[in-house]
């Protein structure tokens, strides 16, 4: 028999080292604060952060909302901006990739907007929408649109020319080819865009919340600084990170499900 199943193990030390490394990291962190090497006004120890985490699950003071409410608001904002960015960016990118009309009209504007970091729009947004949710969603939308357009555009441009020529020999119109060949062909790139856009949106969210918010995880971090509460700052940061990862995992699962049949 040419093929057979066999078990191979990773050496023990390679499985222990990561765990040991993490434990060391937390121990050093805790020790640095406990022994006063870094003053408690600047850094909070892991135990303090954990304690605050537990407390914030139930208590709204001193920043005005419990942890879950903050997280909820942040997620809703990010999700809204993200979905709107998908809704506008993907069709736009797809059309731009195929129809010269779309590209000609949209591209100059897109290329002008593109180099501007989304955060730079914050002051303008405050002028237009004031401090509140619509402004934040607008900035998140802006940051999510860029990867969506680019990826969809590239996805369409990378359609196999052979398929297109084949369709033309059947007498397909431009629209037919677009609908039936370009779009399905571009799907893997489009889904790649979803992951990237989600990461961008989440990153921008924190920035948007910094300058213009009264709730949300980014706001939590800011309040922590204003109230000189390092545990709150760190708690906010960690929650932002964790939630970002969680959302990323969800999007990835969805992407895998939807792309299950298509292999590229």
């Amino acid at each position, binding site marked *: 028999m040419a093929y057979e199943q066999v078990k191979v193990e990773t050496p023990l030390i390679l499985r222990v080292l990561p765990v040991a490394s993490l434990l060391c990291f937390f121990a050093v962190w805790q020790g640095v604060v406990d022994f006063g090497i870094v003053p408690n006004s600047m850094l909070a120890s892991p135990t303090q952060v954990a304690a605050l985490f537990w407390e914030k699950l139930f208590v709204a003071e001193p920043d005005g909302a419990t942890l879950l409410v903050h997280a909820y608001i942040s997620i809703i904002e990010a999700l809204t901006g993200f979905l709107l960015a998908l809704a506008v960016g993907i069709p736009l990118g797809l059309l731009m990739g195929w129809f010269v009309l779309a590209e000609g009209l949209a591209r100059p*504007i897109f290329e002008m907007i593109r180099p501007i970091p989304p955060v730079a729009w914050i002051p*303008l947004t405050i002028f237009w929408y004031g401090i509140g949710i619509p402004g934040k969603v607008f900035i998140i939308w802006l940051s999510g649109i860029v990867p969506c357009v680019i990826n969809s555009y590239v996805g369409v441009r990378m359609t196999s020319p052979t398929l297109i020529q084949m369709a033309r020999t059947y007498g397909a119109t431009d629209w037919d080819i677009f609908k039936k060949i370009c779009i399905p062909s571009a799907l893997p790139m489009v889904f790649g865009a979803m992951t990237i856009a989600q990461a961008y949106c989440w990153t921008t969210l924190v920035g948007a919340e*910094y300058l213009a918010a009264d709730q949300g995880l980014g706001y939590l971090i800011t309040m922590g600084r204003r109230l000189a509460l390092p545990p709150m700052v760190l708690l906010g940061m960690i929650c932002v990170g964790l939630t970002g990862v969680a959302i990323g995992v969800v999007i990835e699962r969805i992407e895998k499900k939807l792309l299950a049949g298509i292999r590229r």
Partner: protein
Amino acid sequence: MTTAATGTSSIANEIQLEVRDRKPFSLKALLKNRWFLYTVSLTLFFGLWKYVDYTRVLGNGIAPPEKVVVAIWRLMTDTVAGKSLWGHTWASLNRILIGFAIASAIAVPLGILMALNRYVNAVVKPIFDLIKPMPPFAWISCAILWFGIGEPSKIFIIIIGTFVPCLLNAYMGIRLIEPQLYDVIRMLGGNRRDEILQVGFPAAFPAIFAGLQISLSIAWTCVLSAELVSARSGLGFIIIQGMQLARPDLVLAGMVVLAFWAWATTLIVTYLEKYLCPWKRETSLA
């Protein structure tokens, strides 16, 4: 005898024979001409901009294009908070360069080391994975707590922001090297050191460079964020000033100049890559 004029939606790889004969000037052909459409687009854009300002739909929140141009011009000659436009630009660029240099000096060797040595990887990766998901902006409050509102906190943010992509790209650059290239060196009589120096570094160089490009755009976002929060100089500062003085022309001026420099630095890095890695053939994204 008529021949068809193609030149429709041409896909990058599709070679189409463009056969044109002398047709009368037609609207349809014009609509398919890219440059015409670009011009139309830009005209519409600026026209819309002017119109929005004219009708005061957004109230005082927007300034017409001419005013922005004037603002930029004035910035070059006058000063805002003690610096001219060039001074502010240099302030921002300076922070980016310093932060970027420090971050890449640590991240690139570390990434390469992690890719080459399993033990280093096992120790560093878990900590890196902890830090990776936290957006640079989230660190701003932390940075201000630790370093105050001066230069160090801004540079710190840039370091945090550029560190992750640099390391990731250096790591992937080494990991994705075709294993047979190592075989070549070994067959020619090279040892492990030769493998790393003769194959590892040069082969990973394009990927490392790609990481640098990504880091650069992130660096601009970081420096901007840091300046929006607390600064006395820099392009972000100009934008914030505009906001505080309720001068949308200043805000837009800052944004335009920022966009220009972000674009220019990206262009410089792209050309640098073409010069240093002439063998790299990649599909460029837009």
